[in-house]
């Protein structure tokens, strides 16, 4: 697909869409973010705000940069020497790339759940305790309390409370993913990034994860990357459509799915291109 067939899309470049969060202030403030892998641009000049205590979904075809954007939010790209970045990301007003920012602390505040469940080769209990032990929490009672709360929040407690000390690898894929969410919640993050969290799961597990996401937004801000349009429509409050590393359209989910401003967005969400 070439941009030339979508004249309306061209008009967006340089004038990023502005979303009015009437009822919420912004959590992430992304300004003119560009990112390149090995001089190959992955994101170009992105500007958007992520509202606090809402679910924001990034959608778009494979390779559009939605996962790259998500990983930029907790500086996971720092590990890769080949990534270069310009632009600024602010979390609650604080530039996350500022010299005084402790990356480990930033990642604790901005938790992340990955596409494939990645529990550590430890017991269920120790998986949830992992981040807590890093925080220096040693007392058994305190650990027990937080772990129970985290597993309850991730809707996993009832399924695992009798065998907390079994290996996490004995759980099903859906349970593992909820365990990873519990592990992340246990360190009390302000933001939860979810990178296609249900793409490797069966429909019932997916449903549980989606319920969980909707339930969690009272506690924290969620950012969801998904290639499943129905999922974005079901769980998110705001949706950003990315294409070729650019932000094409960003609007409240209802608006974007029922009344997209641009042809490109409409074509993608109705499945004509992708």
């Amino acid at each position: 697909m070439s941009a030339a067939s979508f004249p309306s899309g061209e008009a967006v470049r340089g004038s990023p869409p502005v979303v009015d969060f009437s009822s919420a202030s912004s959590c992430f403030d992304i300004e003119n973010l560009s990112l390149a892998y090995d001089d190959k641009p992955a994101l170009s000049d992105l500007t958007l705000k992520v509202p606090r205590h809402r679910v924001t979904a990034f959608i778009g075809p494979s390779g559009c940069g939605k996962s790259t954007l998500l990983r930029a939010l907790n500086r996971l790209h720092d590990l890769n020497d080949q990534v270069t970045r310009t632009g600024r990301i602010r979390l609650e007003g604080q530039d996350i790339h500022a010299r005084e920012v402790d990356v480990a602390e930033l990642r604790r505040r901005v938790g992340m759940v990955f596409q494939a469940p990645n529990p550590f080769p430890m017991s269920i209990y120790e998986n949830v305790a992992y981040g807590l032990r890093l925080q220096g929490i040693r007392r058994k009672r305190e650990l027990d309390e937080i772990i129970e709360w985290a597993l309850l929040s991730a809707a996993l407690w009832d399924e695992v409370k009798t065998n907390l000390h079994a290996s996490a690898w004995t759980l099903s894929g859906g349970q593992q993913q909820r365990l990873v969410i519990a592990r992340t919640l246990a360190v009390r993050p302000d933001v939860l990034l979810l990178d296609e969290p249900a793409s490797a799961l069966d429909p019932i597990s997916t449903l549980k994860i989606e319920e969980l996401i909707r339930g969690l937004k009272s506690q924290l801000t969620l950012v969801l990357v998904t290639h499943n349009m129905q999922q974005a429509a079901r769980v998110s409050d705001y949706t950003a459509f990315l294409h070729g590393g650019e932000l094409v359209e960003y609007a409240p989910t209802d608006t974007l799915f029922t009344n997209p401003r641009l042809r490109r967005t409409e074509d993608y969400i109705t499945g004509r291109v992708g």
Partner: protein
Amino acid sequence: MRWRLGRDSLWRWLSGACVALSLLAVVALLALIAVRGLAHFWPADIERLTLENGQQVAGIPRGGEAETRRYFTANRDLDGQVWRWIAVDSIVERETPASLVYVQRRDWGPFIGRLAAVTTPAGERLRGDAAESRLHQALAGDAELATLSLHNVEGRDVTLPFAQVQSLAWPNRMHVGDKLLAWVDGVWRFLSEAPGDGRVEGGVWPAIFGTLLMVILMSLVVTPFGVLAALYLNEVARQGPVTRLVRIAVRNLAGVPSIVYGVFGLGVFVYGLGGQIDRWFYAEALPSPTFGTGGLLWASLTLALLTLPVVIVATEEGLARVPGTLREGSLALGATRFETLKRVVVPMALPSMLTGVILAVARAAGEVAPLMLVGVAKLAPEIPLDGEFPFLHLESKFMHLGYHVFDLGFASRDAEAAMPLVFATATLLVAVIVVLNLTAILLRHHLRARHRALERS
């Protein structure tokens, strides 16, 4: 379809046959050295032969051919040889008289003949049953004896100081149970005693100890170095042409002939480092070197260098197998890179690291060539560990089972008599390597179990 099936089963048979052949080769090798080595300690019956020309010979049959038999006749001091080839046709009579005695002496090797008399320190001379009972008491440590008078089968006399007697037996009087006890005793002496001057007499305890000590010291050096180097290469260093070059170099290092490491160890450790240490700390002892000559420490360091690539490669493979998603998962929970390494990556790679150490131990325990340059000794009956400060003498020369095999087989006065010991020592070397490997494997198992237990606590 039939054709394809036929080919399929052909491949299966062929590959199966290769496995079977390899197994057979290994089993045959081990069985051969074990049987020939261990048979040496079995107190075989001594035969007395009367030949056509009236001559009498006493010896233990040890193989030979259909027409000529080979007898181990001992008594090097009398005959100047210990083996006789005797034509079967020339034997008139063959018997196994109960009076024949087999004496293992500290010098001159074994003696075969009859006990004539014993002399006490007081000068009293005992014969017959009295002599035998006194001798038994003396061997048990309950009495003292000065000398033994022995006759060989032709009646020539030998007077043997009692201190020269290592062991003594009348194999023709022994039942199978007695022989088994004697065999166990022989094996035990071989394992627990120091060798005599000719190296054919006595045991190999210093060589066992030297081999084990050197391998343990080597492991203590190579493990931290190799693991840290692999961690740096895999986790810290920026991946690029330089790390790739270093990796290639490390892998090629594993292919350098071991004698070259020996030369390197001699030049750098013994002459360079050792010489400098002598000038600084042992100047009063010069020109006789303390550390400036081959020794336990330099041998261990040389072998550590030799096995470094093995540990690095195995550790790196283990680290590379840890999924990137687990590292990211840990980082995303607020762990630093070091915490991620310590809590997730290294525990998961630990079994691979130990595999590297196991491979290194197996390689180092069997390596002989470099040791000849950096500190192995033909004969060092004292083990380098004693009650004298600093208890472990890193500068002392040591014995090594692998080198002992070489020395017995090619450099001893009596290669023929040493042959059974070559097999026995080789068996022992294999056994020591197996024990070392089993220890490392058990340790790996234990660490895995402990890791799991930690997860549960």
